C-alpha cells in the first residue's frame, strides 16, 4: 500500500471509529440497562460480544479471529467513575 492509500485508509478508520463512538454514546442509557457491570466489544455499530471479565472477552474475540485493531472495548456501569 503506498503512502497515499495508507493515509486514506487511516482517515476512513478514524471516521468509522468516530461513528462507532457516537453510536455507543447515543445508546449509553440502553446499554447501561442491558450490560451493567460488563465489558462490551463493539464495531460497525454492533455489539460483538460481552463479558464481566476483560481478559475473557479479549480471549473470546481472538479465538473468534476478530480483528481487534478497530474494535472498541468499553466497560459499562450505572455507577459513574471519577478519575
Amino acid at each position, binding site marked *: 500500500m503506498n503512502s497515499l492509500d495508507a*493515509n*486514506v*485508509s*487511516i*482517515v476512513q*478508520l*478514524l*471516521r468509522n*471509529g*468516530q461513528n462507532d*463512538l*457516537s453510536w*455507543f*454514546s447515543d445508546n*449509553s442509557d440502553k446499554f447501561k440497562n442491558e450490560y451493567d457491570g460488563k*465489558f462490551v466489544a463493539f464495531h460497525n455499530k454492533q455489539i460483538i460480544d460481552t463479558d*464481566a*471479565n*476483560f*481478559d475473557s472477552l*479479549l480471549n473470546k474475540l481472538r479465538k473468534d479471529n476478530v480483528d*481487534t*485493531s*478497530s*474494535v*472498541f*472495548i468499553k*466497560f459499562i*456501569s450505572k455507577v*459513574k*467513575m*471519577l*478519575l
Partner: protein
Amino acid sequence: MPEANKDRIGLQFDDLRLQLMAAIEWKGLKQAQLISFVIDTGSPESFISQAEVEKLQIPTKNRPVEGEIDVGGSRFKKIDIQKITLHLLKEGSSAMLSLSTKLSALKTTKTSEHKKSIAHTLPSILGLDFLMTHNLSLHVFPKEKIAYLQTEE
C-alpha cells in the same frame, strides 16, 4: 470557522467525558489501530490504559519502568514504551494531524482478579502535558456539545 493556519480536531462527548479518537502506529506495526483517549485537563500526565495496551498488544516486555502512579484510586506502574505516532482527523477535511509522541503504558501493581478487573475499566488519558507538548488548545462549549482541540502557532 477555524482561524487561519490553525487546525481543529473534533472531540466527542461520551457521558460528559471528552473523547479523542486517534489512530496509533508504532515501529513494527503492520497497520494503524484505533484508540480513544479521554481528554483530562486535571491530569498532569498522559498514558495508555492497561486495557488498551493489552488489546492493541503494545510491546511492553523488557521496557523500562518509569515509576508508579495512582489513577482512579488504584496504583499502576508506568512503563516507558517506544515512540508512537497518533493520527488525528482534522475537522472539515480528509486531512490528518500526525503527532510523534511518547506516552507511558499503565500496568496494575495489584494481583487479585478483582483489582485487575478494576484496572481494566480505566480509559487512556491525554492530560495537560500532551496539550502543552504539542501546542494544542482545548475549546469546550458544553451546552452545544461542541468541543475541539486547536493547533496553536
